[in-house]
Structures are given as C-alpha cells and as structure tokens.
C-alpha cells in the first residue's frame, strides 16, 4: 500500500526527472539551439555559428576535475587546437552561483581562450544538453548535429599525472569529424563534480 508521501515523492521525482531525462539531446540528433548571455553581456546562440564546428565545455573553477585540466594547461591546449582548425569553443557555467566578473578573471588568469564564456544562470542550457559534470563536453558539427557527448578523456581521475597517457576524446572527435569520418567514440561517460543546477 503506497503512502501518500511516497506517491507525492514519486510525482516530484517524475517532474524533476522528466526535466533532465526527456528533454536532453542524444548523440546523432540535432543539437538544441539556445540564447544565453556571455560574460561580456552579449547574447550567444548556436544558430549564429551554423556552418562551423562548435564545442561546448561545462566549467566550474572550484571543481578539482576542472582544475586538473586547467592547471596542467590541457584544456587550454585543447581549446587552441580546436580553434586553430576553425572550431568555435563555448565554455558554459551553469547555476546561479557564477559571477560574471569572477569567471572572466579566472578565464584570463588561466590563459584560456574560449570564443565565448556563457552564463547559464537558469540551467536551461544544461538541461537541454543533459550536462551532469564539470567538465562535460559536446561537439556539434557544421550541420548542427551532435557528434560527441561525454568526458574530455578516458582517465576519470582528479590527478594531473593521468593526462599524459590519456586519450583526448574531444580532439579525436574533432579530427575524425573534420576529416569526414564517423566518430569512433561518439559517447563516453563524463566524469567530474556535479553541475550545480
């Protein structure tokens, strides 16, 4: 016999779960468009970059896993390599905790070079893409299709030393997709701290 509390709880879970489970995109599907302000106050959207490869990267300066890739300059190098090949790199910070100026100074301090840093304050962008961790990465091809979603690499640890021997899934996906080949590892389990919705 189900108690009213558990029924209510189930209903709540259904609503919350639905928000993430049913709204987020799958690999191979068209990537959802968005309208989000960046740290300079400018409105950014996916459609503005149609015809180019776009990489979305979820960040959180406090997270040890983000620090792993930034303190080692791994993420910055990946960003520069992608942009050198003509891709657009959008860093995203989800949650009301993100302060525009703090984020901006962090980006500058780390020598990061994203095309833009987005402030997903209401969490809508995160939910549309199913972003769960920081870092969590997505690659969208010029036709607007999601071709990669998941971790930055195949070593789910917070240890900088593990970057050297790891396979960088984002670089691999970009290389393959840009060469017109199918992406071998189109989906991987992302690792990191939770995104703070």
């Amino acid at each position, binding site marked *: 016999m*189900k108690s009213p509390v*558990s029924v209510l709880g*189930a209903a709540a*879970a*259904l609503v*919350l*779960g*639905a*928000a*993430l*489970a*049913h709204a*987020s*995109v*799958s*690999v*191979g*599907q068209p990537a959802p468009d968005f309208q989000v302000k960046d740290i300079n106050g400018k409105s950014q959207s996916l459609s503005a970059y149609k015809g180019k490869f776009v990489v979305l990267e979820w960040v959180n300066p*406090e*997270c*040890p*896993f983000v620090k792993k890739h930034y303190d080692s300059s791994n993420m910055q190098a990946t960003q520069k390599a992608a942009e050198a090949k003509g891709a657009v790199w959008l860093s995203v910070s989800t949650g009301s905790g993100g302060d525009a100026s703090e984020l901006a100074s962090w980006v500058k301090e780390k020598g990061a070079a994203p095309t833009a840093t987005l402030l997903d304050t209401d969490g809508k962008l995160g*939910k549309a893409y*199913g972003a*769960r*961790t920081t870092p969590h990465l997505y690659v969208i091809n010029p036709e607007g*299709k999601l071709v990669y*979603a*998941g971790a930055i690499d*195949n070593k*789910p*640890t*917070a*240890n900088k030393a593990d970057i050297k021997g790891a396979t960088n899934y984002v670089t691999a996906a970009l290389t393959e997709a840009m060469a017109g080949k*199918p*992406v*071998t*590892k*189109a*989906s*991987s*389990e*992302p*690792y*990191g*701290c*939770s*995104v*703070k*919705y």
Partner: protein
Amino acid sequence: MGAVVQTEQVRAELIAHAPEGARPGKPMWLGLELEHIPHWHTYWKNAGDSGLPTTLTWTLPAAVSAGDIDWPAPQRLPLPPLLNFGYEGTVVLPVPVTVNDAFDGETLHVELRADWLVCQVECIPQSGTFELDVPRDRPTLTHSADFERALAARPVDVVKSTAVAIVNDGALQFEVRGLPASIRGRDALVFPELAGVVENAAPVTQQWIGDNWQARWPLSAQRSESPIQLPIVLAFGDQAYRVVTRVSGWNAAAEAGNQEVTSSAVTVSDLAPATAQVGLVTALLFALIGGVILNLMPCVFPVLSLKVLALTQHAGNRRDRWSSALAYTAGVVLSFLALAGLLIAARAGGEQLGWGFQLQSPATIVALAALFTLIGLNLAGLFEVGSFVPSSIASLRARDPTLDSFLTGVLAAAVASPCTAPFMGAALGAALTWPIAQSLAVFAVLGLGVAAPYLLVSAVPAIGRWLPRPGRWMETFRMVLAFPMFATVVWLTWVLGQQVGIDGAAALLLALLALALGAWWWGRRPETGAARVWVSVGIAALTVGAFAWASPTWRVAASEARVAAGVGGIWQPWSPDRVSELRAAGRKVFVDFTAAWCVTCQYNKRTTLADTEVLEAFEANKVALLRADWTSRDGVIAAELERLGRSGVPVYVFYHGASAPRLLSELPSVKEVREAVTAN
C-alpha cells in the same frame, strides 16, 4: 603511517577481521571505515551522474591476496535534477582476503593506499596511506561488530533467479523471477552497477506480477554502453539483493532509435552470439565428428581397451561379434540420451548445469573411482568376477556377453563426458537451446560417433582373420590393461582433491585400499568354515567403515579450495564484474573456463597455455588473464557459458575492445591463441 587518516571531512581507518588469526585457509577480511561529517558523502562502485568511486590499492605479502571491495548497498544521493549513489554517515568497505599456504609470517603486514572523492556541494579528492599488522596466532576481533554490519549490508546474490532486461522504446524492461517470497509486493530502490546505461535520475516504474518483479527504467539519452549483462542492486528497505540481468535488444534499439550508429562505442556487436549460430545439420555433423575424436581422448581410452579385449574373445564368431558391437553402441547411445535427458530436465527446473555436470559432484567421482579400481584389480587378476557373484549370475554374464557389452557402453558414456573434443562444444551448446527432440538427436549422434569406430571395426568380416587366436598372451594383455584403469583412478583422485581438498583425496585412497582388500578376500574366501563368515564380516565392516569415515571429507569445500586451484601467478579469478571492469579500462581480456575433471582443459593448461610464445604474447599485449573454475557447481559460470553459446568446458574467450567476444577452439593451437591476441 598508521591505521587512521583524518581529513576535514572524513575519518578513515583501516580495520581487519580475522576470527582465527591471519592463517592459510582461515577467513579474513580487511576494510576501510569511512566516517563522514554531516552532509558529506563518498561514492559507490557506480557513482551515478557524477563523482568517483573509492579505490583501494593494497600492498600485501606475496602469499596473500585481497579481492575487490564487497560494496554494501548504497544510498541515493539526489542533487536535483541529478542523482548519485554513495554513502553518508559511516560506512565500512569490506574486502575478502585469501592467505595461501606459503604464508608463514608471524604477523601479516598490510599497507593500503585509498583514494576517495568526498563531496557535499563541492568535491574534494582525498587519499590516505594506511598500515596495519594482523597477527597470525591471535584472533583479530576488535571491529567484528563493524564487519558484521558491513557484511550484512551487502546485497545478497540471488543466484537461483532468472533476470532479464530488454531494450524497448528507449528504456530497459527488467523482469526478475526468483526473489524471496518475503519481499513480494514491496517497492525497491534500484541501483545499476554499470555506469553509462540508464538515466540515473529518471523514475523507475515497477510492479509485482505474482512472483515476478518488473520494472522500466529509461535509458540515458547519451548512453555510452550497451552491455550484455547489467548487474543491479534491489534495495527493499533494509534488505538488498543483487541480480545479474541478461540484456538483449540493443540491435533493435540502434536501428529504431535516433542514435547514429557510427561508432563501436555502441557495442552492438557484443550481442551477436559469439559463435555463428549452428544449424541442426551442422550440429549433428559436429557431434558425429566430435564423438569419433572422443575415442582418442584419455577418458574413453581405458574403456576402449576393454572393448579390444572383448573383440579378441569373439574373434571367431562373427555373429557374436556383431551383436556385441551393437549392444555396445546401444549402451553408449542410450546412456548419452539418459545423461542429456537428466541435464535438460534439471536445467528446465532452473538448475544451472552444463555438460559434464555429473563430475561436479564428489559422490559421482568417488563412485567412479571405486568402480574403476575394481575393474583394474579384476584385470590385474586380484580377483575373478565369476567368484564374486553367485554362480547363477556369473553364468548369465558368460552366456550374455551382449549385456556385458551394453554395460561397457554405459560406462564409456559416463566417463566420456569430461573430455571435450573439438566441434563438440559448439554442437552441445547449440543443442541445449533447442526443443527436446532436436537436442536429444544431437546427443544421440554424439554417442553414435563414440561407438562408430568400434562398430566399423566389428563389421569388417576379415577382422576375424587379422586378430590373433586366443591364447596365453591374453592373460598378459589383460593385466597390462589394468594400468590405464589405475591411471584413471589417479586422475579421479586428483579431481576429487580439487573439489574437496587434500584430506578428501587421501581419504578416498584409503577407502579404495579397503575396497581392494575386500575384493581380494571375496575372491579368495574359502567355500566353507568359520573363517569364511568371520573374516568376511570383518573385512566388509572395514570397507563400509572406511567409506563412512571418509565421507565427511567429501563435502565440497568452501571457495578456498577452488580459488587456490589454478589461480595465482598471472591468472586472476574470474567474475563478470571483473571482465566489465577490465574492458572498461580498455584492456584485452582472456578468459579460461576450466574444471579439474575436464581432461581437455588440463591438457591445454599444460601445453598451449603454458607455451612461452603464448605467454610472451599475453604479456606484450598486456592481456588480463582470468580463470573461471567450474570444478564444482557454479551458477554464475554456468549462466555465462550459456550466454556464450556453450554448455561445457573448456571455453576460451578473448575480449578486445568493443568487438564481439571471440571464442577459440577446444584444443587451441599456439598459433590460434597468438593470432587472437595480436589481431586488431
């Protein structure tokens, strides 16, 4: 370094439980106790939407090995809209420890490096190094209450259950049968042991239909795994259970779904049967060939030698020879059918059995050893059968060599089963998935194959002229044949030793000694007189007593005996989880499904698998070597064999990346193994 590491959020302590001291063959557990400050948590083996599980790296003496963490049932850690799985408050992560005979220290020095991710809102990766000394001669019971709690909090493995999950319309439909009656009707919290499959935070709709628990769990939108097995933990309040669900339907999902199947990351090919599905005609052909080859295997050979002897006795009479051959064939075929029938019936009843199952029982081994000892002693001339039975039956046997041949056929079938010839594995594996009629047909043809050479030879009319005339040489030949019989007894003793330990094996030898004494006396006892009665009674009592005294040692030992056998050095014990873990880490995996009573397995172990070229190839390619020992009954191994399309051992499986598991032949050559390992 001590046994405790304290951080701002966590107090971690290395604890041990050794109720009989740290000694070989005695139970021992190590554990990491984590005490979290309020609202902070660490993670389960599958952390969920984010986070990382706690990892333990042990430094132990050479003769000691620690298993994987035996995770207590986790809690749900919601962080809407995300969901993680882990532990708040205090948790003990227990680890089983095996101490080998080689350990002779006074204390067992344990060193541990543990890494954990502790989070509240933010996450902090922490680690600690611990050391602890566990004495050998004193029990370590300081934390017995903690360990009791931790071990009780582990999900109970429901082995006698059937659990399946079918991919349907973007979700997994679970169906589990065989859960205990006490929890029927209750709702469960469900936890997947593998990440990257289901949408963790999505609501799981569940219901009970009779004794069937069903649930539906939406798949993750960005699913990265398509496993063929998904172990899940079902927590019904305080009591948690673990079932390994067999997953199917990924193929259909990939076609119907929006997911672009451009990558082998979607391991769709894993679902295809590892060997091409064998058709009926092919299976019959394989069974026939396999049966013929079985004659060359050491299992059948001792029995075959008996037949050769019988053949010489009938050299002159073609009719007798032919009817004897037919009787032998009938014996073999009908016995295979009976064995197959038993196997099918048992499996239908839910037993996890495979071909060769009769040899997983120590009782059968003892019975066969006793029988072969008697036959060997008879051949050697210690006693005569004529004097062993009342004269009326003896003359019956003399008059009816047909019955004798029939019984020899039965014996041949019973002992042939532990040997697996090439071709047989695939044929039998397929046969057991078919309807009864086709299944039995394959087994009958197998029997026919075994009997075929003898049948053909008997049919040749000229054989009478080729064989030497009966004469004195027969006596000598008969005695010589005793030795292969005794060799088989030695082998059976070794198998029993693997199953129940060295005490049981020695006890068997003593019991057989008593049996031999009894057989000798019965053959020589005087026709009349007091001595006849008293000595007979005494020796009979001795024989019965010996068996009775030995029988307690013939209980199947706990997993210690099995774990020690064949595992060690480069071979690790097999478990489905271990395979998934290693594959997830990107390693190549080679699994050897073996059993002590499987002669083909032992042969391969000592030849191909011990070959330097093969070992070098394994090392160069960093292949993880796992051994699954099926000497005694094991439902998990039986289920895995079935999933691979086989029903008996040996089975050699090679996993590489995301492609389908590759099965090697039953008698793989060095070339075959090396090719499989180095192929891409």
